[in-house]
């Protein structure tokens, strides 16, 4: 028997593959309904690849590599590619939908002539034996309108509603024979059907159900029989039925008589976002200040935290030191607390009026007879505070890695130097430090790249402030590139400018890439020099 020869692992493998394929097959129609061709092709390619690799024996190595590759593609490569794509679009407030969606939203709009605006009246919903819906609209005693409720495509073929005063006896509505009156509850159960139906009153006017009341009579309102906008596919334009004008497409919006119709949609705009960054004076001005400070901030953060971390690890690396473990644990603590918690705590500590730091420094200020430092409120104090906190946040990491690296440096080398008559400082700078750099410099580069984009700290500690007075956009002295991007594209301007924001992040990415490439090349040289020891 064949299936008896199947081992447990094979059953497991085929079950997993079956589930995987079922998911793929389930996802295909979903991608089709959302017209997401990119996802569709991605799903198909991954699906076919997985099946080929695991059902044949020809690609043994791929069986190990493929899962990792798929994860890398979907979580690293895809976001990066997508970000790049967004940077070439106009994706922003007013332009977040696709053109189809925008037309859908616009075509749903109806209009009420001004003289009928705000008119509210009672509506009664009836059903006949064939389950057709009928509306009674009680506009006033002269207009008790009754008729069949029809869907949008029957509006112009159905007969108009008729005045039926007999439906009200002593001001009370009475259900005519042969009809069933729906209660509020039943109207709600059918609300998705009812909201598409209308009672046609004349050529231009219809009554629609607006508010279903579960306790009293429901309410209707009057609207035009035609929707406000009709999309004209031939001309690729929108027809305004209220004013009888054609609204052509202008770039990413329809325009009616020179006025943009919201919402617009997303389009490809080429390098427009990039050229805006470099040509617009109001962005270029602050960009210089911010870029300079970003480099200073990232570099000084790395230097300070590395210096503190190295110093501590050298001190604690002494053999025979008592409570060594306890000291180490204490110094790692800042690393164990989430950075955003520390940032907020520091913000409180630094508050110039009631923060702990100024109240501790109070005697010192009095002794030196100076004004208390207005932490985070002036350029210098804010920049120092940001660096101080970042050093505090960063040194435990440096402490950890230098402790490890120091222990891996052979003791014989230091002893040999001692025998040759080198002082402690000489042997540190000539032997320990260079050897340390071989293993640690890649991590320093990583730390630099991290601090280059350290949005959390800046955003939570200083919010980028204090403001640079007189600049053309709202920007602060401690803003780094990434927080400036946020202010420029997300919290400022006209709502969210995702396209512009993406283009700045691409530039930041390029900067970090170049710096890292140069640094790594330098590190390689170090390795070549000291690698053979």
């Amino acid at each position, binding site marked *: 028997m064949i299936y008896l020869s199947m081992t447990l692992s094979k059953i497991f493998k085929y079950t997993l593959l079956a589930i995987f394929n079922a998911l793929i097959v389930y996802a295909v129609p979903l991608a089709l309904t959302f017209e997401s061709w990119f996802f569709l092709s991605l799903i198909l390619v991954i699906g076919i690849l997985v099946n080929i690799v695991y059902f044949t024996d020809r690609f043994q190595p791929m069986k190990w590599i493929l899962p990792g590759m798929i994860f890398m593609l979907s979580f690293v490569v895809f976001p990066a590619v997508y970000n790049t794509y967004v940077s070439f679009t106009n994706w922003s407030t007013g332009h977040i939908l696709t053109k189809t969606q925008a037309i859908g939203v616009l075509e749903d709009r109806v209009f009420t002539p001004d003289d009928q605006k705000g008119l509210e009246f009672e509506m009664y919903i009836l059903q006949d034996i064939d389950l057709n819906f009928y509306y009674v609209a009680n506009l006033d005693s002269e207009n008790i309108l009754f008729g069949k409720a029809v869907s949008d495509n029957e509006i112009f073929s159905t007969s108009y509603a008729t005045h039926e005063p007999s439906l009200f006896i002593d001001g009370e509505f009475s259900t005519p024979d042969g009809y069933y009156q729906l209660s509020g509850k039943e109207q709600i159960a059918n609300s998705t059907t009812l909201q598409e139906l209308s009672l046609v009153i004349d050529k231009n006017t219809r009554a629609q159900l607006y508010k279903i009341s579960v306790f009293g009579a429901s309410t209707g309102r009057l609207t035009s029989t035609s929707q406000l906008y009709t999309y004209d596919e031939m001309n690729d334009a929108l027809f305004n039925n209220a004013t009888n004008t054609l609204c052509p497409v202008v770039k990413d919006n329809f325009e009616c008589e020179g006025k943009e119709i919201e919402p617009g949609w997303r389009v490809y705009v080429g390098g427009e976002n990039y050229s805006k960054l470099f040509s617009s004076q109001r962005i270029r001005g602050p960009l210089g200040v911010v870029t300079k400070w970003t480099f200073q901030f990232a570099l000084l953060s790395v230097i300070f935290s590395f210096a503190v971390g190295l110093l501590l690890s050298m001190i604690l690396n002494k053999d025979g030191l008592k409570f060594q473990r306890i000291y180490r644990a204490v110094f790692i603590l800042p690393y164990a607390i989430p950075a955003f918690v520390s940032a907020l705590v520091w913000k409180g500590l630094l508050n110039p009026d009631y923060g702990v730091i100024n109240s501790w420094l109070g005697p010192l200020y009095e002794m030196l007879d100076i004004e208390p430092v*207005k932490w985070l409120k002036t350029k210098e104090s804010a920049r120092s505070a940001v660096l101080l906190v970042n050093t505090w946040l960063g040194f435990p990491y440096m402490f950890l890695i230098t402790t490890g690296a120091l222990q891996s440096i052979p003791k014989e080398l230091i002893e040999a130097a001692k025998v040759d008559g080198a002082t402690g400082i000489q042997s540190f700078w000539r032997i320990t430090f260079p050897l340390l750099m071989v293993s640690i410099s890649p991590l320093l580069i990583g730390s630099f790249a991290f601090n280059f984009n350290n949005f959390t700290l800046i955003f939570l500690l200083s919010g980028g402030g204090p403001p640079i007075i007189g600049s053309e956009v709202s920007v602060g002295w401690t803003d780094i590139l990434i927080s400036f991007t946020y202010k420029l594209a997300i919290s400022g301007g006209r709502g969210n400018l995702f396209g512009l924001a993406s283009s700045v992040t691409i530039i930041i990415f390029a900067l970090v890439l170049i710096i890292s490439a140069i640094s790594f090349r330098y590190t390689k040289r170090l390795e070549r020099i000291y690698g053979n020891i």
Partner: protein
Amino acid sequence: MKTNKLRFIVFLLMFSLVAVACGGDTADDAAEAPDTTEAPKETLAAPATTAPPPEVIVVWAEEKVANALDPLVGAYEAAAGVDVEVVVYDFGAIRTDVQTAGPAGEGPDVFLGAHDWVGELAANGVVSPLDLGSVASDLFDVGVTAFSYGGEVYGFPYATEAIAMYYNADLVDSVPTTWEEAKAACDAAGTELCVGAPGGGGGGDAYHNHPFVASAGGYVFASEGGFDASDVGLDNAGALASAEYLDGLVKNGTVASTDYGGSMTAFQEGRSLFWMTGPWARGDASAVNYGVGLIPQFDGNAATPFVGVRGAMVSSFSDKQVLAQSFILDFFATVEVQQAMYESDPRLPATKSLFAVVEAADPVAAVFAASAANGIPMPNIPEMGSVWGPFGDALLIIRDQNYGTNEETGVTVSNASDAMKLAAEQIRNAIAGG
């Protein structure tokens, strides 16, 4: 060829799995189809109620509001035969997620949010107009204006919020009606600071400073049935005169150079006689025996604080528009629900019927509500994003008397008028450039 046969069987197995996976949908469709159309034809009795499952209204609300709303919806569920699913959502995330989840078909039907989102949401086409109809007569105008955009109303306002003036009731009986009298009261009481207002002391704050420039003709954006981003009024004659008046108030020590924290501690420690802030600070103010009055008038004009309004809106991507509207207008807008909401999350009432209830129970809240009624809503257009920074920075210069030349940009701000002109220029540039 055992292995080949094996593969064939596995393939067959998988195909059947796939078939089951696909078949599930069609089977469901078949079950859902006969709702109203295929109900028994012989009888006229309640044909519609039997077949369809109850409709579900998904409501997104921040935690406090959701907790207030959750016990109330049971009554509506029973009466209307629907399921109301109140989802606790992070307040700020509602604004962004409505715009992404809606178009993806996963958004709410109804969501509760702030009025200043309306411009962005309407520009993006994710919120439906809401005809308030007869409900509108029960609402304060400021609430309806707040939710108006491009000639349509986009939400039912249920709560307002605006600043007023706290006073230290041990030292003074009430808030005077003019700033001169306020200064005189401070001199008489002999407090270190007079009026503590956030927006100085290094902490820019356009929100708290708004009455100082907008009470005598100044405005952020002109408002005529919706805000007009092309008309910035922060450097018109009224605004400049007000700014110079504020400059005088700062120079003669009436308005202190304090940020939010500074003004709070000063009031709590009895170092300032007045504190200009909103109803959220009542707990903090209770460190002293406090009272609340309207902000003193400017040249005979009532102070116009910025008013924030909260409201209920309908997602345009909801496929149950009528039901969502009915939920808001027929249930949420009723005074019973509004009052129950107020009891669990006290915000200033936006409806006249609730104001009448609150006025008797909590006079301090009524003062804040009256201050809000004098105010103007924060502009709800997306361009408002360009305003907060420059506006707050300009007022910060005046409040801190931080005049001078910026060495980096070469811009000189030598008086209050310069600061306002600079802010207006920055805002116009940002709108033109964005």
